[in-house]
């Protein structure tokens, strides 16, 4: 909420700095006195968790870059050098690799939170769009990063994804050759992917700044979906309330993180990536990292190469226009009983698409009497269909047809109302 700044410099130095570069004022207004709705639940802590993840990835990434060699003959060996010889290299590498997965776990929770509570709706459209942009940059960063260890999956994943650009009519071949810097994925490709992998996280950081700025202009959404009416009754200062809550959430998140890093560091990865890249031998199953599986499933659902590419990119593109697809006047799914059910179906569909992405397309799920049967591709097509149906059809229709529940008058009422009814029941 942009209101009057409440910063009051306490000492001479603070006054001097405030007159020249009001950073302390900015920090104070954004993260100390910033009015935060008092009814936020733990789903709202993932913004802070994501910032922690970005910081961890950048820190460990820069350190890894001190030891990594971006040449095809030396890359795999340099990663093994990090794992074996560099002091704590194994720890930094496992934190970075598992950190990418943790980053995506957090971003999916964060996005689904937005979908459930209507955080993408007016006046937060730009906030949402910036978020989708961050998501896109994250996927590109992860893609570049996965190529760097130069394992079989690194090489063949890079080959498959860059080949997609070849599907574009007229310019596709030139674009693909331009991306490769040669006639196939090779040294020029690896070197430039290393450079871009180093660059993109800082682009992400920049967009995150815009994202938080946009957030602070409109203020947070909240579980009731009702805007702040009286800051004194509806909000609490960010510090210490949100700070300690985010801190607690981060420590819980780190427990899950530590489980993977220390006790199951390769559980989310592919064994094939411990085989040095061989341009003359394709692995039996080429799979991207788990967080890209749903889009991989959508890509393979379409029998036509260009069609698959278009549908896959459309699946992300549709997210950009979400604020205008949803016609409901009510934000939070808490008060939208019908939407809430479709939301969970959508979650299941996305998980299902992820599962499909990991299978070979012709794996039979339900055998039919005549041999063959309902296979993974069939399921992927149904789930992809639902994905687009959900956004393009259900979103607009629900807003018009749904009978929503009565909204509370204010955030304060929604908080007090619960405790009042709880004590009434007790």
């Amino acid at each position, binding site marked *: 909420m942009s209101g009057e700044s409440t910063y009051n410099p306490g000492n001479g130095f603070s006054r001097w700095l405030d007159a020249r570069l009001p950073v302390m004022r900015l920090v104070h207004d954004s993260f100390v006195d910033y009015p935060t709705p008092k009814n936020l639940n733990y789903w709202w802590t993932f913004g802070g968790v994501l910032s922690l993840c970005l910081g961890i990835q950048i820190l460990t990434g820069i*350190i890894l870059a001190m*030891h990594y060699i971006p040449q095809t003959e030396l890359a795999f060996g340099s990663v093994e*050098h990090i794992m074996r010889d*560099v*002091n704590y290299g194994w720890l*930094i590498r496992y934190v970075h690799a598992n950190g990418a997965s943790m980053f995506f776990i957090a971003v999916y929770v964060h996005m689904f939170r937005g979908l459930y509570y209507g955080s993408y709706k007016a006046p937060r459209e730009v906030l949402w769009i910036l978020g989708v942009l961050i998501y896109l940059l994250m996927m590109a960063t992860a893609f570049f990063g996965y190529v760097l260890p130069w394992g079989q999956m690194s090489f063949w994943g890079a080959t498959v994804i860059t080949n997609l650009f070849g599907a574009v009519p007229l310019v596709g071949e030139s674009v693909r050759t331009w991306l490769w810097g040669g006639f196939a994925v090779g040294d020029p490709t690896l070197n430039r992917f290393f450079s871009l992998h180093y660059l993109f996280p800082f682009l992400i950081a920049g967009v995150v700044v815009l994202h938080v700025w946009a957030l602070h202009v409109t203020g947070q959404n909240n579980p009731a979906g009702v805007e702040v009416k009286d800051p004194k009754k509806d909000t609490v200062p960010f510090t210490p309330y949100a700070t300690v809550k985010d*801190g607690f959430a981060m420590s819980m998140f780190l427990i899950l993180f530590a489980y993977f890093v220390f006790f199951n560091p390769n559980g989310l990865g592919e064994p094939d990536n411990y085989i040095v890249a061989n341009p003359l031998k394709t692995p039996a199953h080429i799979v991207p990292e788990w967080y890209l599986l749903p889009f991989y499933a959508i890509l393979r659902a379409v029998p036509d190469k260009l069609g698959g590419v278009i549908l896959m990119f459309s699946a992300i593109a549709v997210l950009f226009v979400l604020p205008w697809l949803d016609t409901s006047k009510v934000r939070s799914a808490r008060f939208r009983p019908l939407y809430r059910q479709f939301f969970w179906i959508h979650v299941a569909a996305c998980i299902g698409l992820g599962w499909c992405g990991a299978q070979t397309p012709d794996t039979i799920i339900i055998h039919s009497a005549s041999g063959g049967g309902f296979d993974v591709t069939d399921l992927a097509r149904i789930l992809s269909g639902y994905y687009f149906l959900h956004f393009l059809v259900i979103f607009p229709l629900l807003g018009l047809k749904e009978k929503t529940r009565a909204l509370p008058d204010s955030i304060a009422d929604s908080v007090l109302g619960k405790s009042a009814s709880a004590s009434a029941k007790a």
Partner: protein
Amino acid sequence: MADIHAEEPTRRDFLYVASGAFAAVGAACAVWPLIDQMNPDASVLALASIEVDISAVPVGQEITVKWRGKPVFIRHRSEAEIAAAEAVDVSTLRDPQTDDVRLKNNPEGKLAKEWLVLIGICTHLGCIPLAYKGEYDGYFCPCHGSVYDTSGRIRKGPAPTNLEVPPYNFVSDTKVQIG
């Protein structure tokens, strides 16, 4: 709503201070690996010690070997060179050191005066001095004219200290281990 009692602030403050300190300790422990990773790694430390066969170095000649990325001179000194090194009045030296302290014992326990082992980097600004050059037939650094004697001690020119003696020992009569 809740009143703030007199004892509450101290209990609450203790919890905040304890948590803050606990978190800070954790952060400090987490920072250490990030700093230690820049220290020499295992593959570099493995090259920290080398063994050199000196049996083929004739009297009056020297060889240069690479140790920890730096040149090391191993000189087989003649009687004349040894005598010249011992004859110097140590109090006149810029960096006073007797010849003896710059040498090591051979495997039999006697001082191996004929073997001089030095790091071949001029103590002025790091160039590599030339052997058997300069007034004392020790070393001469072409960059700025430092002159060292047959014990590697600085005699003339801008270098502040004598050529450094690396840690070494005689594994046998024909093998010296450096580092």
